[in-house]
C-alpha cells in the first residue's frame, strides 16, 4: 500500500466526482435535452477481485456512468453523455490506470 499515492488518487477522484455531478445536473436541467448516451464494452485490466470490485464501485459512484453488465474480464458501461464511444473508453481507461497505480499494482493474479 502506498498512502501518498492513494491520497493523490482520492483527491483526483473527488474532483472528477464533483465535476461529473455538475455536468449531469446541467444535462438534466437543460431546456432541450441534448445529451448523447453511449453503451460501451470495456475490457478490464484489473485482475484481482479487489481491483475489479473497486473499479466497478468507482465507475458506479460517478454520476453519469453506470455498469449495466459484467462477466469475466469485461464490463458493459452506460454513460449519460460522451462525444463518442472511443472517448468514453479512454476516460474509463484513465480511471482504471490511475486506480491501479494508486494500489501499487503487485502483479498478483486471481
Amino acid at each position, binding site marked *: 500500500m502506498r498512502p501518498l499515492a492513494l491520497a493523490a488518487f482520492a483527491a483526483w477522484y473527488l474532483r472528477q466526482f464533483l465535476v461529473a*455531478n455538475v455536468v*449531469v*445536473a446541467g*444535462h*438534466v*436541467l437543460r431546456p432541450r*435535452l441534448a*445529451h*448523447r*448516451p*453511449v*453503451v*460501451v*464494452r470495456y475490457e478490464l485490466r484489473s485482475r484481482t477481485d479487489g481491483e475489479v470490485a473497486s473499479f*466497478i*464501485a*468507482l*465507475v*458506479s*459512484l*460517478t*454520476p*453519469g*456512468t*453506470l*455498469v*449495466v*453488465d*459484467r462477466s469475466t474480464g469485461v464490463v*458493459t458501461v*452506460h*454513460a*449519460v453523455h*460522451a462525444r*463518442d*464511444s*472511443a472517448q*468514453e*473508453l479512454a476516460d474509463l481507461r484513465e480511471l482504471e490506470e490511475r486506480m491501479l497505480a494508486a494500489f501499487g499494482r503487485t502483479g498478483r493474479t486471481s
Partner: protein
Amino acid sequence: MTLQTVAGDVLLGLGVLLVVVAAVGLVRMPDVYNRTNAVAKAGGLGLVLVLLGVVVLSPGPTAVVVLLLAVALQLFTVPIAGLEIGQAARVSGAPFAPGTGTSPGADLPDGEPGRGHDGDR
C-alpha cells in the same frame, strides 16, 4: 443568524437542490439507464450534503457519530444499488433510448420482446 446556521443552511440547500435535480431527471430522462444515472447518484450526494448540513446545525457527540456513520454507509451503498438496478434493467431487457451510441461488441438488447417498451423503439 449565526455563522453556524448559515453554513448549515447552505449545505442543506445544496443537498435539497441536488435531490430536486434528481427528481427532475426522474421525469425527463428518456430511458431507465439514464434515469438511474441521474437519480441514484445525484440523489445520493444530495442526501450526504443534507446530512452534513444537519451535523453543522445540531452538533452534539451522538448526532455527529450517527450522521457520519449514515454518510459513510450511504457512500458505500449508492454504487451497489445503482449497479443492481442497472443489471436488473439490462437482464429484463429494458429498451435503450433511440440514438444511444455503442462501441464494437456492446450489443443493445434490440430483439427483446416488448416488455415495458417506451414506444420509442
